[in-house]
């Protein structure tokens, strides 16, 4: 047990117990999400929660944040049993939470979101100047470059995540819960986040940290509690080696994390030439060939998602061309892109990928809906069958195909978005953060599905903030920097260092091709 320094000595001895959960149980219709789980958190430690998708991690922390109440068991804070019935209760107890799914109001500014319900006031009116200044300070602390007056709707998911972090920090809590905060962040932001968390730990804050990136555990954590099927199966030190962690988590070991198999590239399927959207990206050209996976790497804000969306027709562009199989696509027309054989798994599953209040099987069948229509009528039985098979293949953990997607765990929601596009059988599939929030075991299964796609002559363009994933799965890596393609690396030469060097390169005068 290490004894963190508390510089101002403002809190009782480091290492003392902050909170404890005893024998908690939570049941949802059709699912026992948690059963007899014990968990505790000490001052000045980072306690990692580890488990497969649907193991119950988010459910556990939601009982601390006031979103759920346990059906059995009890929660103690500072040794006193407490009832956390609402977010206000949690806040009073000094518990701040960053949820897996974002909870920001799209129409409001970044500053308003950070201080929602707690806006600084002057003479009864919101003191905008102070609010914006305070927000700017917080944003600088987490190291994200956004104007506090920007509407949240204009931010990509990495920045949304940083705003969520800033919001939680603004609460000055004693317990900070972070549910997969790094799922969409690139190495640079993760480093900044870790620095902040380490400083908080030194100040005696207790941190609950959920992640599917195993390498982060040793880097940041102190202890790890492993959940499996709603039970706590182990509590081990964070230094435990990764293979052992995986074994505890999934009950078996994983041989190969990136099972890349390629037969060699064929004809070009997607050709992008000189694509430009002022203020977003400039003169982007590349090609994706049959049987190939092309990675698109870069820092947050480099323009990867913007390019992907423009290629797919989700956003307009100013000049340039997009061709699929030699045929030029009209600008800003998703339907045409789809008909030509393009697909896009969007980065933001909640906002762009899912109809949350519809059943799993309907979400899975959304893209194939038109194809399943004969003489005006949809073959719903066939759609259901296909969805059921896909859900099984991806091991979507659910009570049944009629369960609403909203009540699936985050990783399982992500599997539904991917499954929807796998069913669509697009010739060229663009994956934007495909494995966001997906556990190590399921990732391998998705990589194998990608292999199967390329083996059958399909092509994949993959964007991911998870650099090892991009490097491990791509045949070529395109690196973007400030809206331009800064360079291209073949699989052999694509190392973290080589990619990072290109990603931070000043692109003045260095056009892609």
């Amino acid at each position: 047990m290490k004894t963190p320094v508390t510089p101002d000595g403002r809190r009782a001895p480091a290492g003392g117990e902050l909170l404890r959960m005893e024998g908690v149980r939570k049941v949802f219709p059709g699912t026992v999400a948690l059963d007899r789980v014990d968990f505790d958190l000490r001052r000045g430690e980072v306690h990692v929660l580890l488990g497969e998708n649907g193991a119950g991690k988010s459910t556990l922390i939601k009982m601390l944040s006031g979103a759920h109440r346990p059906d059995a068991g009890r929660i103690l804070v500072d040794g006193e049993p407490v009832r956390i019935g609402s977010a206000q209760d949690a806040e009073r107890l000094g518990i701040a939470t960053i949820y897996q799914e974002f909870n920001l109001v799209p129409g409001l500014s970044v500053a308003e979101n950070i201080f929602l319900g707690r806006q600084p006031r002057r003479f009864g009116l919101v003191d905008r100047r102070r609010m914006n200044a305070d927000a700017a300070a917080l944003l600088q602390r987490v190291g994200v470059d956004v104007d506090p007056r920007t509407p949240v709707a204009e931010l990509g998911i990495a920045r949304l995540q940083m705003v969520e972090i800033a919001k939680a920090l603004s609460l000055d809590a004693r317990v900070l819960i972070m549910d997969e905060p790094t799922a969409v962040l690139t190495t640079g932001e993760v480093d900044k986040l870790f620095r902040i968390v380490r400083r908080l730990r030194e100040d005696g804050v207790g941190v609950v940290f959920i992640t599917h990136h195993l390498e982060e555990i040793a880097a940041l954590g102190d202890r790890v509690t492993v959940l499996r099927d709603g039970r706590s199966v182990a509590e081990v030190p964070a230094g435990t080696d990764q293979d052992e962690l995986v074994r505890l988590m999934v009950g078996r070991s994983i041989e190969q994390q990136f099972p890349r198999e390629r037969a060699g590239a064929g004809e070009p399927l997607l050709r992008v030439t000189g694509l430009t959207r002022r203020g977003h990206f400039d003169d982007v050209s590349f090609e994706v060939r049959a049987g190939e996976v092309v990675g698109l790497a870069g820092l947050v804000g480099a323009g990867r998602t913007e390019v992907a969306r423009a290629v797919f027709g989700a956003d307009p562009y100013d000049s340039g061309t997009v061709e699929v199989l030699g045929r030029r696509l009209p600008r800003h027309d998703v339907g045409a892109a789809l008909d030509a054989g393009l697909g896009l798994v969007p980065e933001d599953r909640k906002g762009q990928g899912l109809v949350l209040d519809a059943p799993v099987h309907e979400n899975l069948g959304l893209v194939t809906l038109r194809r399943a229509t004969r003489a005006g009528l949809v073959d719903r039985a066939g759609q259901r069958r296909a969805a059921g098979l896909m859900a099984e293949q991806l091991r979507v953990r659910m009570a049944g195909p009629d369960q609403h997607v909203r009540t699936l765990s985050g990783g399982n929601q992500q599997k539904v978005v991917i499954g929807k596009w796998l069913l669509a059988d697009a010739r060229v599939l663009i994956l934007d953060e495909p494995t966001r929030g997906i556990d190590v075991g399921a990732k391998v299964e998705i990589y194998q599905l990608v292999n199967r796609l390329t083996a059958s002559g399909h092509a994949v363009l993959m964007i991911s903030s998870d650099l090892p994933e991009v490097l491990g799965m791509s045949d070529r890596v395109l690196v973007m920097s400030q809206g331009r393609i800064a360079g291209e690396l073949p699989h052999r030469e694509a190392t973290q260092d080589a990619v990072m060097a290109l990603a931070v390169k000043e692109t003045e005068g260095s056009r892609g091709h």
Partner: protein
Amino acid sequence: MATDTLDSAGPAKVPGPSGDKGAGRAPGALRLLRDNGALGALVILVVALSLLSGDFLTTQNLLNVGVQAAVTAILAFGVTFVIVSAGIDLSVGSVAALSATVLAWTATDAGLPVWLSVVLAVGTGIACGLVSGALVSYGRLPSFVATLAMLSVGRGLALVISQGSPIAFPESVSVLGDTVGGWLPVPVLVMAAMAVVTAVILNRTFSGRAMYAIGGNEEAARLSGIRVKRQKLVVYALSGGFAAVAGIVLASRLVSAQPQAAAGYELDAIAAVVIGGASLSGGVGKASGTLIGALILAVLRNGLNLLSVSAFWQQVVIGVVIALAVLQDTLRRRTA
């Protein structure tokens, strides 16, 4: 809860380990009641009124209720498409009146063959819907504003065409206001047919499924290749077409097209949809619910009349019932 089938299949398949007593084991009728809050309200109303008034539970009176419900129900079916796709249509009453006026005017004053007049009337309704739909999808107007404008335009055009006075309805169409076999009112038949059409469109057609997706998450629908703008045109066109049918049925009953007919009916239609369990935020709603909603309103009006409650108090009671019906439905969903 997107479809009828899902509603009943869902809880039955998942044996609640939470021990929610007897759930999933309830007999069919009870389950139907539990899964459809509005139906429960309707049953309670019917039982209460049968006890309170001896005249209520007679075949003649029930058929009367059916006739009273028909126009609202047909309008409401059209509005269901709009509400499921997260919009609102305030223009259906005006469009109904305009379509009926077009029918009467073309058949009598312009002397066109009746079948052509009917086609023109329905075409008018669809055209009004297309205009609203175009304003919403291409003009990016909120549906509230676009259809509010159409409410005024439609009514105005009806007044212009009819010069403000009723036009006699051609006799061959007025049979729609009669009965078959001397007892079964045609409006009830039309209502039933439109209910089936609505259910098929919502459950089985591409456009219907697209409505749920658009209402649930428009961006996700768009990125799944659903041509959202085009689908919205379909949605409002359907609403306009249904309004035209309702207008024709109403005019047949009145044996004349009245430019001021169906004023305010859009609110009854919306109420019926909402009582039927649809959500104004979109993605939820079904034909059976809307039918039940319309029946609740008609039963209530009829019963209150039988009990000689004054027209003033009727309004109060109806308002309270709308609130209660929707309230119990949301409470039921929350505890489910």
